[in-house]
């Protein structure tokens, strides 16, 4: 499990209040019974933790946790790259 994945799992587990979450790549927010408020809080926590900005329109392509983690990893890499080049 990558650092990003571990951190996201901790955030999601805390916000959906389910300590025994089965956090597999094919799992969805629906599987976790996350409501719209949970999802907003997860996005805010992820953005604050990794200092990234998640575009809501990008999330339409994110269908499960595997895609969500990959998206965050990409955003973190983009941020690190722009920090190095600036």
């Amino acid at each position, binding site marked *: 499990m990558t650092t990003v994945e571990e951190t996201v799992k901790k955030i999601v587990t805390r916000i959906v209040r389910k300590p025994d979450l089965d956090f597999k790549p094919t799992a969805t927010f629906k599987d976790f019974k996350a409501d*719209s*408020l949970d999802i*907003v809080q997860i*996005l805010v926590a992820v953005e604050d933790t990794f200092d990234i*900005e998640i575009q809501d329109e990008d999330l339409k392509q994110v269908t499960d946790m595997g895609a969500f983690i990959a998206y965050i990893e990409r955003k973190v890499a983009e941020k690190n790259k722009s920090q190095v080049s600036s």
Partner: protein
Amino acid sequence: MSLKGKIALVTGGSRGIGAAITLKLAAEGVDVIINYFRKTSAAELTAGKAREQGVTAHIIKANLAEPEKIDSMFQEIESRFGRLDILISNAASGVARPALELDTRGWEWTMNINARAFLLCAQRAARLMKDGGKMVSISSLGSRLVWPVYTAVGVSKAALEALTRYLAIELAPKGICVNGVAAGAVESEALKMYTTDQGLPQPSLQTTPAGRMLRAEDVANVVAFLCSDEAAMIRGQIIVIDGGLTLAPMTGGSGGTT
């Protein structure tokens, strides 16, 4: 209307109605502090547009559901600006559910951002308004009308309006004018999402007796007026901005009965 040189905080001031208010105040010569929840890029964009008016624009990220974030936002305002002249309580959020399906988390989230945040911001802002000031709350017609799944937001807006009246009287001796505006449906991304989710008519199909749908700038113009000294004898009022729709809901926006 002279607002030049004033300093304003607009909560939720980066997008939609909040951005229109920010830019209207900037156009009037007001230095603006833009509070935002998530989108730094949107806040920076609005701040950039405000600066084109020759004013100072500063952005502060803060989730107003958290009292400690409100505290740190005001600490930053105090250390950077030293005072505040105008508070616009615009930030809003809400859980869209029928009353019988609302849980306490959704209720508290909505009430905390839409109503409690105004109380906490007003408490802090009043201390920074040493020479008086203006506060304007941004309400919604959903405080008195009933719209599908708008229960939590509508009730929170009703609380916001009541708080506006109480603050107006309590802060009057300090030279602080407090009023609110309640706008009808404004053409915005938020409205489009709401109508789509609820299967309601699209914004472009709706109009008002005034002949068109409300724009964010219509709200911003009234807010700017309430921030001026010309509005000094308006206290604790909620100004309805709806193109006359609530007075004549059956006209379908035809502009009258003729």
